[in-house]
């Protein structure tokens, strides 16, 4: 049987990555709890609701690896392999996500424990919503979008930045018509990660999810809109993006870069139905790290790919947490002369990557102290730091002063890379590391 969201939770609990909490808690306190806990938590007793809430599933590299069931150091290669072998979903007639159906007046968003998450947020948020929409030209699209609670049947959806869903919406909006969408909450990590992936237009992200899973995703037609959704979702909101355009206040919200975002104006999502499993589990994705780690493996895979194109033998790639799993990367390579700088040039051309450290493959890039050691002793700042000015930036970075830009103008940024590989001309023996005598003769556990 295909592992679903709750199957993933069960496995994570068995492996020690998730803990069940029976003590009662109100939804506005969940984020403070989830983001302080050493494990993912499933809070079973939510005050005023009969739906448990889980959070913190992808909070660290270790936890997202556990959710996926992949080795922690193989996230990039496993992700790349999955993307390379997409599998078409299979369509089913009956689905767990439709075991309970509320239509029309019976569909009430206040029945869901939608948490209030960050101090300056504009309201309670569905942070783990995966939106599905259909378009005659591009087919089915899935993507991750936040939704702010407005009323029992309306939410504001963030369609501010360019996306496939925004493209679909612009088309229906220009005709004065609504866009049918379904929002799934509580999807397996493979489906969530595929939806977060910036796939080319026309790509069905659920085919990528199938590739990541190694088996086709099961999907079912939603009850009130012409959209397919994953059959094993915990909860599905069906409805329409109204043709109100970018007029409804939305935000602020705690953004993926770890900073409080701005108040925006966005379209309204009006629900027609809520369907769910019996005894559904609500997933509250915690910002910023859960959101960032969903993108981390894709960033690492993109780095591997571009280094391959550049003819550089990359050994390991690490998208660091401090760089929000995309803006800062460490790479170890088997270097030939000049390739430290070549690697920097290639990696800085990726849209998100803003800073790079390149090391030789004797450095464990998952150990930040080792990386720092390499920077300290293998780098001369006047020769080995590469700065490139005037590159494409993102508005979310305050250091590019986006507020000074005229409306519609894209910001520019300076990027840099540090070549922390052994400089050309210095023999490797100059970097010979100290080794404890008779290291192989000692088993530490025998003495502790």
């Amino acid at each position: 049987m295909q592992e679903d969201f709750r199957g993933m939770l069960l496995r994570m609990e068995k492996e020690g990555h998730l803990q069940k909490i029976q003590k009662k808690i109100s939804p506005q306190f969940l984020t403070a709890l989830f983001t302080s806990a050493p494990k993912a938590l499933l809070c079973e007793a939510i005050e005023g609701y009969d739906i448990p809430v889980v959070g913190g599933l992808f909070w660290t590299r270790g936890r997202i690896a556990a959710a996926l069931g992949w080795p922690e150091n193989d996230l990039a290669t496993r992700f790349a392999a999955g993307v390379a072998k997409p599998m078409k979903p299979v369509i089913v007639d009956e689905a767990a996500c439709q075991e309970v159906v509320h239509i029309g007046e019976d569909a009430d968003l206040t029945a869901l424990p939608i948490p209030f998450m960050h101090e300056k947020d504009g309201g309670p948020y569905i942070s783990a919503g995966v939106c599905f929409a259909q378009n005659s030209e591009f087919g089915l699209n899935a993507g991750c979008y936040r939704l702010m609670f407005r009323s029992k049947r309306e939410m504001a959806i963030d369609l501010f930045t360019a996306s496939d869903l925004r493209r679909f919406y612009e088309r229906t909006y220009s005709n004065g018509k609504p866009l049918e969408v379904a929002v799934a909450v509580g999807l397996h990590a493979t489906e969530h990660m595929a939806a977060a992936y910036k796939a080319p237009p026309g790509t069905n992200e659920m085919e990528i999810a199938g590739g990541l899973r190694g088996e086709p995703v099961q999907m079912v037609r939603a009850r009130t809109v012409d959209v397919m959704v994953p059959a094993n979702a915990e909860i599905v909101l069906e409805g329409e993006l109204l043709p109100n355009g970018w007029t409804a206040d939305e935000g602020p919200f705690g953004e993926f870069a770890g900073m409080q975002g701005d108040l925006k104006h966005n379209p309204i999502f009006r629900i027609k139905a809520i369907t769910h499993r019996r005894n559904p589990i609500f997933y509250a994705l915690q910002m910023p790290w859960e959101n960032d780690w969903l993108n981390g493996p894709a960033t690492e895979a993109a780095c591997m790919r571009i280094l391959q194109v550049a003819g550089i033998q990359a050994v390991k790639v690490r998208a660091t947490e401090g760089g929000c799993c995309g803006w800062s990367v460490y790479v170890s390579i088997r270097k030939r002369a000049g390739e430290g700088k070549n690697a920097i040039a290639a990696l800085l051309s990726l849209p998100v990557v803003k800073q790079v450290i390149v090391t030789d493959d004797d450095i464990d890039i998952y150990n930040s102290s080792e990386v720092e050691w390499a920077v300290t002793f293998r780098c001369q700042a006047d020769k080995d730091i590469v700065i490139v000015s005037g590159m494409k930036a993102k508005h979310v970075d305050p250091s590019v002063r986006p507020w000074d830009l005229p409306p519609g103008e894209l910001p520019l940024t300076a990027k840099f890379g540090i070549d922390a590989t052994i400089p050309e001309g210095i023999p490797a023996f100059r970097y010979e590391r100290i080794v404890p005598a008779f290291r192989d003769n000692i088993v530490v556990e025998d003495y502790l």
Partner: protein
Amino acid sequence: MSVSAEVVARVLNALQKPIYFFELLAELEDVPYRTILSAWSEVRETTALERDVHGRYWR
């Protein structure tokens, strides 16, 4: 779920000055979260709310 007129009135009263949503929750700390959201729903359906650049609400 029916919303008591008293809670709606308290929400409307709080919105007489610019207020963050978290301040509204704090002001109604004696009211169950779900009841506050139901009252908020009613307010948003019946009252045009202003927002400032910081995200505060008022009416």
